């Protein structure tokens, strides 16, 4: 990656992140925090890339890598499931109306 492209890319991402979040009403802040947390679970991609490189005879790193993958997946699956659970509460009411 060229440094200049990368810099543009990072700056735009920051603006995009702020812009998207700033329109969320306070009532949805908790689900949003939970959802954002789940998205940060994309770190799992890094854990998988790392697993490709780890020497299969290096058991310490293999186990540590496995733990990393486990934790990353837990972050994603728990994060999205819990967010969905919270949002279901909101939806049940509007259906009832």
């Amino acid at each position, binding site marked *: 990656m060229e440094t200049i492209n990368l810099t543009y890319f990072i700056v735009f991402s*920051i603006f995009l992140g702020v812009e998207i*979040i700033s329109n969320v009403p306070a009532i949805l802040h908790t*689900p949003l925090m939970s959802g954002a947390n*789940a998205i940060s679970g994309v770190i799992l991609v890094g854990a998988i890339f790392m697993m*490709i490189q780890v020497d299969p005879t290096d058991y310490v790193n293999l186990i540590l890598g496995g733990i990393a993958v486990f934790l990353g997946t837990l972050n994603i699956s728990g994060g999205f*499931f819990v967010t969905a659970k919270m949002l279901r509460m909101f939806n049940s009411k509007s259906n009832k109306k």
Partner: protein
Amino acid sequence: MENLIELGYLISIISFLAGLKFMSSPKRAKLGNIIAAAGMVLVVCLTIGISISANIPRINLLVLSVAIFFGGVAGKRIESKVEMTKMPQLVSLFNATGGACALLIGIIEASQNPQSLFLQFCLFAGIITSGVAVTGSLLAYSKLSGKKLIIENKNTTLLTKTILLALLFIPALILTNIYAGALGPVVHIVAVLSLVYGILFVAPIGGADMPVIISFLNSITGIATAFAGLVYSSYIMIVGGIIVGAAGILLTVLMCKAMNRSFLTVLSGKIKKGSKKAYEKEQIIQEISSSEVALELSYSSKIAIVPGYGLAVAQAQHICSHLQKLLEGRDTEVHFIIHPVAGRMPGHMNVLLAEANVDYSYLKEMEEVNEEMDSYDLSLIIGANDVVNPAAENDEESPVYGMPIIRTHHSRKVVVMKRGMSTGYAGVQNDLFEMDNCFLLFGDAKDSLTQLVDQLKLISK
């Protein structure tokens, strides 16, 4: 093939952005979550696909699949067991797992001894941020779960500063090539130091400020993810990380504003000190019995309910919803007025009331109704304190001065349900209690509300 994978990642990035965007409306939020989750599943599948085509050793693939399987199942199990009131600590716990994942990646990558200066920098930055996020989130989790973990913070300020300096200094030694040995041991030291720093960082902060800190730590995990993304040149990790980082910082600022505190005072664990006399003044209050309140409720035609943290502690959201339905049945207009920081996180109170099946249309935000508070016959304040203190608007000497409040004192009558005369978390007396139109009903919020409901049923229409 490679273009196809890049396209898949692009779709995922768009789905993250769209998912978050959709979360800005309660109706589309659920869809937004599904879109983001689908994007995430796509990312993971693509990445596993890449690893298989990259001839990953069989044992690595085995460990990988087992870990993903158990991670997914564990997440689902936790979700099915958790209660709504425990949401804030759960977010904190998940944040710790994400941070731990980033930390392990950093340590293992560093053990491969990368030579590039840029990679080394990203690795160190990733390890420090994720290390702080892990222990910080875990401590926040235990604080919110009510576990007492007291660390004497008077003597630790020097230690905190020393560790912070070391965290900046050690990587600098490596990056400037002054120390040219193996990276591994140094990385371990930095990792341990950042873990310790995470504890020292969160330790002095009070339980009531935890949401701010969770939000902040959330954004730190995002930044750690972005650094890991730079290590692997993965656009999806960089974008995902930065969005979460930006969102976390923004939420932190919003929460601090709602509490009228600067982020720095939150970090130092200090509470703004007001004039001394505010603490010592004895208050003359008027008590009221639950049967009298029930009578008041039956006479009122427009009622404001202001729920606070006390309602969540007493788990009284269901009985509160029951009371509201009972009053609705008597043609009384009932509104729930929610302060931006009610509960333990912004929006947490809305989730709790939603869980208790309170219809969305009855929830009002503070700004919506504050100008017309005098149209309410009765304000029922359940377990809230500082957010209704008129001193925030009238008394410039008060520590809470300037904080946005719900002007319940403008309504015809105010009933405050509270356990005792203790102060709110700002530690100041509430001028509202002394007002002529304010009455106090002491007791556990759930018990009091149950009595109210029972007595209201006896009063005929």
